[in-house]
């Protein structure tokens, strides 16, 4: 049995001349809460759709729970729960009808669990789905994705379009689920601070390419801002490995390093600069630091 819930190798998919996913190698350990972050249009949804055999890759391969989506899609879907970016449900059904309809697709459907989740989210089973708010619809989607006790939960931008309070509640529900043993959660988002709150590992994708894949803390540790004094111009620092950018004017400057380490400090000091302070960065800054150099690059 593989230790990865999801693994992709050289996964590629293009739409016309646009390369949506470019040679993607990804490994999502079982039992992890994995954040898949990237800007809008970075290739997150395309990757997820290939994992669920909603799209066929042009080349490369994917494995979900050790199974190839192209050959064992039904088995994968039996063991995976999925909430799409904008869950579109059958509005004419009542919540109860939709839950029952969904349940008939699964041998392992846990009606009590679904009912419990409905109660937990305060969803009235007799309400028509079209009368639910966006937040309630998202919660209902989560119920439908969890009713069969999936080993892997895939959430594609689950909190898009939700207001701040609802988003927080929604994430809280996910956190609650994470606590259940053995379950893997793979969720994509462009809201990095959300991911930071709940994920223990993240992958950063930009223009279809994987930029980083590491535990959250490790990734955050790799990128630092260094407050320096007496530095010359940015070009003087460009030879230093991991140098990203320099901000500010005058005597004190803020230098950003990706892949920060003692070598960077030494190299910085070698230019004659004095290191005043090393500042830890949040995931969002790390993400920006990773992605910014690639913005504006061609994609085809």
């Amino acid at each position, binding site marked *: 049995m593989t230790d990865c819930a999801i693994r992709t190798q050289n996964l590629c998919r293009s739409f016309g001349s646009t390369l949506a996913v470019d040679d993607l190698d990804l490994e999502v350990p079982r039992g992890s809460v994995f954040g898949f972050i990237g800007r809008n249009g970075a290739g997150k949804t395309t990757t997820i759709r290939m994992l669920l055999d*909603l799209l066929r890759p042009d080349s490369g391969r994917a494995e979900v729970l050790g199974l190839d989506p192209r050959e064992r899609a*039904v088995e994968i*879907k039996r063991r995976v729960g999925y909430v799409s970016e904008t869950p*579109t*449900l059958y509005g*004419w059904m009542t919540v109860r009808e939709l839950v029952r*309809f969904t349940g*008939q*697709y*699964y041998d392992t459907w846990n009606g009590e669990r679904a009912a419990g989740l409905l109660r937990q989210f305060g969803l009235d089973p007799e309400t028509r789905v079209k009368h639910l708010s966006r937040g309630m619809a998202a919660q209902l989607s989560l119920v439908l994705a969890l009713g069969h006790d999936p080993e892997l939960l895939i959430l594609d931008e689950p909190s898009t379009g939700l207001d701040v309070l609802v988003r927080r509640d929604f994430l809280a529900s996910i956190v609650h689920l994470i606590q259940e043993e053995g379950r893997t959660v793979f969720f994509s988002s462009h809201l990095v601070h959300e991911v930071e709150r709940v994920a223990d590992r993240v992958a950063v994708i930009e223009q279809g390419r994987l930029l980083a894949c590491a535990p959250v803390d490790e990734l955050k540790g790799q990128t630092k801002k260094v407050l320096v004094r007496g530095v010359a111009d940015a070009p003087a620092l460009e030879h230093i490995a991991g140098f990203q950018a320099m901000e500010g004017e005058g005597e004190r400057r803020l230098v950003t390093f990706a892949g920060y380490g003692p070598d960077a400090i030494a190299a910085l000091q070698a230019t004659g600069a004095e290191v005043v302070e090393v500042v830890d960065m949040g995931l969002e800054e790390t993400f920006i630091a990773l992605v910014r150099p690639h913005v504006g690059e061609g994609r085809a």
Partner: protein
Amino acid sequence: MAALFWKEWRENQYKVGVGLGICVILLALRGPSDKFNAAFADVVQVWATAIGVLTAGVLGMEVVAGERSRGTIDFLLTRPTTPARILGPKFAAGAVGLLAVVAGFWLMVYAVPFNSGEDGTLANWVIADVPWAAMVLVWYLPLLAAYSYVFFASAVTDNPAEAGALGAILALGTLYVYVVLGKLIPEIDAWGLPEFMLGLGVKATGSTVRVATTWTLLALRFALSGAIVAATCSASLLAFSRHRQYSVRRSSIVVAGFALVAGALILPPLLPEDHASRSPRVEVPLSASGKGLLLLPQAGEGVFAAVTAAGLQVFSTGPLADWPPVARGAVSAPGSVEAGVVASGRVWLAAEDTGPDGGIAVVSVAVDDADAPRVLATSAVAGFHGSPDIIALDTLDDQALVLAARDDQGLHIAALQALETGAVSELSRLLVSEEDPLDTGPWPELEAGTRRWSVTAYAGCLYLGMSRELVIVDARDPRQLVETSRLPLEAPKRDRPHGPRHMTVANGILHVERRWPGELVSLDLTDPAAPVLTGTAHRNSPLNGGHLFHGLVLRPGSSRFWGRGMEVRDPEDLEARPIHVLFTGPSERGWGLPEGRPLLLRDHLLFTVKDKLAVFHLPERLQAAAARAN
């Protein structure tokens, strides 16, 4: 699968409900309103087509494309199920919905009898003859095929409107391709597939229903619909499995639609004009409107004459039976010639409007010399009320002719003795009258001059095909014509004026056209004065607008949607497809139905149509059928 069927059925409910609601409204209107009921009887097939096609389209176009456009398709695709288990229940739910509407429509038709209005006579007795379930099936199967086309279109597009348009284009395109192939390859045309699938015409008379409800055709229709459904469903599954975001651009659909219409307009003239076996081998212009053909063996081998309104034109095929025929002599006759017959070695012509009072003249023509036919004598036949219309001129025996002419009083049957001088003397006369509902109908001006009756002679007896009855006259003694019996043919029904009732004798059996329902009545003439009904052909009359001659049926074909054709059928095997298609072509070619007696000459069929003589070569199969019938 049951869950998805339930979901689909629930989503289709309102569409099926609307379809059935229309049926209920029609039913409600039919009950109290005789006027609506009578009008509905005439357009029931239009309603059936409109409701059926709309239902099939609406149910089919939403199936997958609707889910794609709403975004709900991902909900299904992310469930642990296969494409077949998604498409299967979806197709089934739509098919059941369509069946419900078709069945409901025909329940509504059968629930209230058609009332022709005036005398309260039921006019839907023919429809009642066809079991409701058979009628439902006849209509359902082609509609199911249409639905499956739209279903396929829906499976490959993401917009229901595009799916509807694409489905229509595909369905019409298939038909179009078939027609084009039929033009190029006659064998394909001979399959007559559109006839099996689209023979849906259901007048209140139920005429065409009988075509479709024969078991053979129903089985063929079932097989053909099944094949289309299997093909479209397989294609849907393939497309749905492999191209899940396949999307047809709207511009492509518009272009395809235009291409289809343009192709239908442009392509036919570019195709071979007519296949050789379907074209008249020869067309010969006549001096006036043709009224029939007569074989003149006494004038030589291969000599025949065309009776025209102006007189007689003699032709011969030549010693080598070569075509076109060689024009020989001609002779003109007074008035307007309407009929001709050969007796006593002469040709006898009957002409109208020959005097100041508008009587009938019988002209005898000597044809011993094909190059110089000459008029021997002209005799006036009087005793008519007003201007008579000649219905027929025929022979009772070699010395006696019979002239049938209609005037205000009825049908005059005059037995005429052919004298050696070429004159005729009247031996006896019988006036046959019949209350003709058309005489009091709303079309008096159209009625004027309409020849609706026909007369056939066999073994000294006459069979008069009147408006509603077959009248049998014993003329074995020409001096004493006796009406022996009458056989009712039609239910009283007002309708448009129509052409003469067609009759023919083959193998001692008289075949008579019955218009409501359209079918053939067969009478055994072992005792010619007392024919015995042997059966009716339960199908659309092959004589519906056609001709019976030499035991063959000649009728306009309708399997080509851009033109008209003429096909030959075997009345002994009415279940069969046309034996042969004589010609097809654009209607502007001016071909119509043959006038008067056609002629079988060697391996050719000849008839006059308008002011032309057309000669067709007959294939062996047709010759064999003609020989068998004779």
